[in-house]
């Protein structure tokens, strides 16, 4: 999934900006971290209140950071709501964020950057699979 997002959306957007490859990669990392952070937060949000309190109490008693991370990871993976939270994140929040970035680009792009973006969009092969 991230491969698609990169080759289809974020890659062309950053390349159209004309940044050096290294800076494109660095900005990509921050963007993906934001996506992943928000995804994790969405899953935590979907936890039932009782489970949140249980996690909070376990975190308070944990001996070290490793144990805390394990508690959080288990809470993320084990929740029956996780799949629902991921669907909600991808189908709503993720695309909102991607559109924000596209708009941010369009609002400030030079004509050359816009043209470059259009060329990249046109030259990106379609990946849509509409067959069942």
């Amino acid at each position, binding site marked *: 999934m991230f491969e698609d997002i990169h080759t289809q959306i974020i890659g062309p957007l950053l390349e159209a900006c004309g940044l050096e490859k290294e800076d494109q990669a660095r900005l990509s990392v*921050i963007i993906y971290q934001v996506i992943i952070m928000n995804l994790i937060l969405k899953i935590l949000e979907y936890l039932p209140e009782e489970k949140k309190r249980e996690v909070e109490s376990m975190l*308070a008693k944990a001996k070290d950071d490793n144990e805390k991370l*394990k508690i959080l990871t288990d809470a993320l993976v084990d929740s029956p709501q996780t799949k629902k939270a991921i669907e909600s994140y991808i189908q709503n929040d993720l695309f909102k964020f991607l559109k924000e970035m596209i708009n941010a680009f369009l*609002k400030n792009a030079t004509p050359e950057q816009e043209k470059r973006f259009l060329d990249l969009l046109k030259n990106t092969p379609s990946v849509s*699979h509409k067959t069942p």
Partner: protein
Amino acid sequence: MSPLPLGRSPEIEGSSLERQIRGIWPRDVRREVLDLLHKIGENEAAREILSTTVERLFRAQRQAEQLFPSYTLPTAVWQLGSILILSVHLLLRQHGIHLSPLEELALWAGQSGAGFIGTYLGMKQLYNLLVEQRRWVRDRWELIKEGLTGQLSKRIEK
């Protein structure tokens, strides 16, 4: 062309990019963002993309602080993200995008040995759930791309 009717509202009132960057932690991440901002310089389009990203990061960190107030959740979430991003790392490298070395990401995660592996496996499970959404993402993007290409073509023709 006016921006696509899809996006965000203007900047959070009273905030500035610099103020939001100062609110970012861990410190390594803050330093990375500042360095990148400096390198981007006057490239307004790239700067605005970074600004949008920082704003989202800032908001996510505030949200994380509220979820589990007794724990430094923003850092923990960042650590988990770093582990999950390992799953993305190799895919991106196939496209010529070289992220930080794995060792560096592992350091970000602040993990080692069995603790790290356990967390990594948990994050891999999440990644597999994300992959299930792949087709939806592809179809949605195709629709957006079609509209975007049309709008940009018209604007450039003028």
